[in-house]
């Protein structure tokens, strides 16, 4: 999947940077620990903009392109900030055969954004994800940690309205 460098200005604080460097040091800047370091960095900033990748690369003494190569390889790492409410519509097989495609279409229409995007007010971001493992309740979607199951297209408006 193509990933771009975010146009949204970076708002990292010195405190966040101090936390990040102490995490890198706790792994003794070990190259093999790059994955857990990136995962913890994403927990701090919410996403991994190029500025954060630069901090990591410098501190660990590895090329920035190597860090960028890893970040863009794994779908969990995001180069764009997430909305206050991140909506993930499951497109796993069990959900798909029970109509998850229509749920995603309606969600796109309702929020006016494509999967991977974020609404202008920063309130909602939308993702299409692969199986959250709640196949018994298919089709499902998640808003942050909250799971909504046994959905019909009509539920979409009701769920979004709850968070507006």
């Amino acid at each position, binding site marked *: *999947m193509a990933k771009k460098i975010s146009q949204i200005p970076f708002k990292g604080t010195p405190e966040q940077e101090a936390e990040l460097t102490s995490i890198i040091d706790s792994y003794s800047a070990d*190259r*093999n*620990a*790059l*994955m*857990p370091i*990136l*995962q913890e960095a994403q927990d701090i900033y919410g996403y991994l903009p190029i500025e954060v990748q630069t901090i990591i690369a410098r501190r660990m003494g590895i090329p920035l392109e190597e860090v960028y*190569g*890893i970040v863009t*390889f*794994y*779908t*969990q*790492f995001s180069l764009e900030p997430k909305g206050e409410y991140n909506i993930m519509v499951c*497109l*796993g*097989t*069990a*959900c*798909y*055969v*029970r109509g998850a495609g229509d749920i995603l279409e309606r969600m796109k229409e309702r929020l006016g954004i494509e999967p991977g995007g974020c609404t202008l007010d920063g309130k909602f971001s939308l993702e299409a*994800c*692969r*199986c*959250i*493992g*709640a*196949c*018994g*309740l*298919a089709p*499902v979607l998640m808003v942050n940690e909250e*799971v909504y*199951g046994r959905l019909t297209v009509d539920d979409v408006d009701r769920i979004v309205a709850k968070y507006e």
Partner: protein
Amino acid sequence: MYRSHVLVCGGTGCTSSGSKAVIKRLEAEILAHGLSDEIQVVQTGCFGLCEMGPIMIVYPDASCYSKVKEEDIPEIVAEHLLKGRPVERLLYVETVDGGGIRSLNETNFYKKQCRVALRNCGVINPEVIDEYIAYDGYMALGKVLNEMTPDGVIQCVTDSGLRGRGGAGFPTGLKWGFAKKNDADQKYVCCNADEGDPGAFMDRSVLEGDPHAVLEAMAIAGYAIGATQGYIYIRAEYPIAVKRLKIAIGQAREYGLLGNNILGTDFCFDLDLRLGAGAFVCGEETALMASIEGKRGEPRPRPPFPAEKGLLGKPTILNNVETYANIPQIILKGSDWFASMGTERSKGTKVFALGGKINNTGLVEVPMGTTLREIIEEIGGGIPNGKKFKAAQTGGPSGGCIPTEHIDTQIDYDNLVAIGSMMGSGGMIIMDEDNCMVDIAKFFLDFTVDESCGKCVPCRIGTKRMYEMLEKITSGRGELEDLDKLEKLCYHIQKNALCALGQTAPNPVLSTMRYFHDEYVAHVVDKRCPAGVCKALMSYFIGDLCIGCTACAKACPVDAISGAVKGKHKIDQTKCIKCGACMKACRFNAVTKG
């Protein structure tokens, strides 16, 4: 001593249906009635019956409540727990048998099941090591360390006939034997818990419901091959499983079951978790190891196999969660016991995640050799809404669709391959007549294109071209010769891709072309989608049942429907966007699609 135990499922399925709130309310009500010393609430792993969640079982009488709501709790506590009168209207319907109440084990869903890998799921509290130990936990490790040689362990696993449950079905004992033979200063034991197949959740349920079984098995494997360090590579998308594994590892260390000098012997073994970051290809063994090393999860050519050069260049064994979950039982009960279940070349049981168009969605474990019909009709309770069974998809994006004509096939590794699918990790998605097989093939290709790592050309470019051809067919621009081209390309990718992801990517297309050729032809020649899924090939019509109520015309978002009040309405096909709103609005079944 408690006089009663209330087990509530804390698996992902039931948690999503609200089991946390149920447990909280239950504890509050029990406290309010002063029953805290008499009744214990236990949060367990998955019972398997996810469709009916949240599930709650009251012991000693084993009454099973399904779809429990927070509001039902006061009544259940006051009636059942206080006065001993089960609230019949809230019990799982299948367990209420003409006035009497039967246990869950006698229901159609459970009767044919045989739980080995899932034996503790829904039985013990996975966050308490003592409960696992009470159910013979860590006894196999003790037996191995005190009574068996490493070669003896490998022989026992080999004799049991256990084959890898991750998909390919490689004999586990053989794999361990290779790794043992390769001398090195350091070896590794890895567990593949990167359950990437969409629609499969067996491994997640084992880890959530019985994490110690996997830890114990990995320690046994470490002893067998001579490794002191293990890694569990698990999806970050499984937060409950990750949390329980962390708790389990901490408790095992505390009890001296992981770490140095385990159970007073010379054997040392420890484990660490590595979280995956959402890449399907990391289920491939060489890619998984690259990912643990903090690199891009790209596969490399084999040989050398991981048993020779694996993680950090050292001999490594990698098995999947369900494979490990079988090991302690095999050690304790013997290889003959395990080999007595199953078919000639596939021994033991297999867990399937049953999903899609089926009444009892959930997790089932059956002996190898059970037929698809038994799983669908008896355990699964058939297809909802009186629809007809069309196909069962096994093996996820690497597998294929099994049609009605093969519904009596005995399921094992070799039989599934013979009919063009594969065991895979155990996802089983049931489809009915409303599912379009070309659309399903396209769905899987979309997945593969997205997840291809891009290292080799056949997979990176080939799957993309396949997707484009399917897109052409489902949008009505396909020609007959496209079908031949598509098939040729399939065989080409199968033969030339670097890893299993690419080699098996054509399977969904090949199997649907083999069994549902007419459906492909209908799309290409008649420009028609028989299941009514592909929008470009489908139209809505208003038939003679129309009474002119105007409901459809009001619902239409593009004003494509015209007609006088009390007169038959008509859809302007040039304006229609095929959203289906008219069909939903009509109360007289006058709108049809085709």
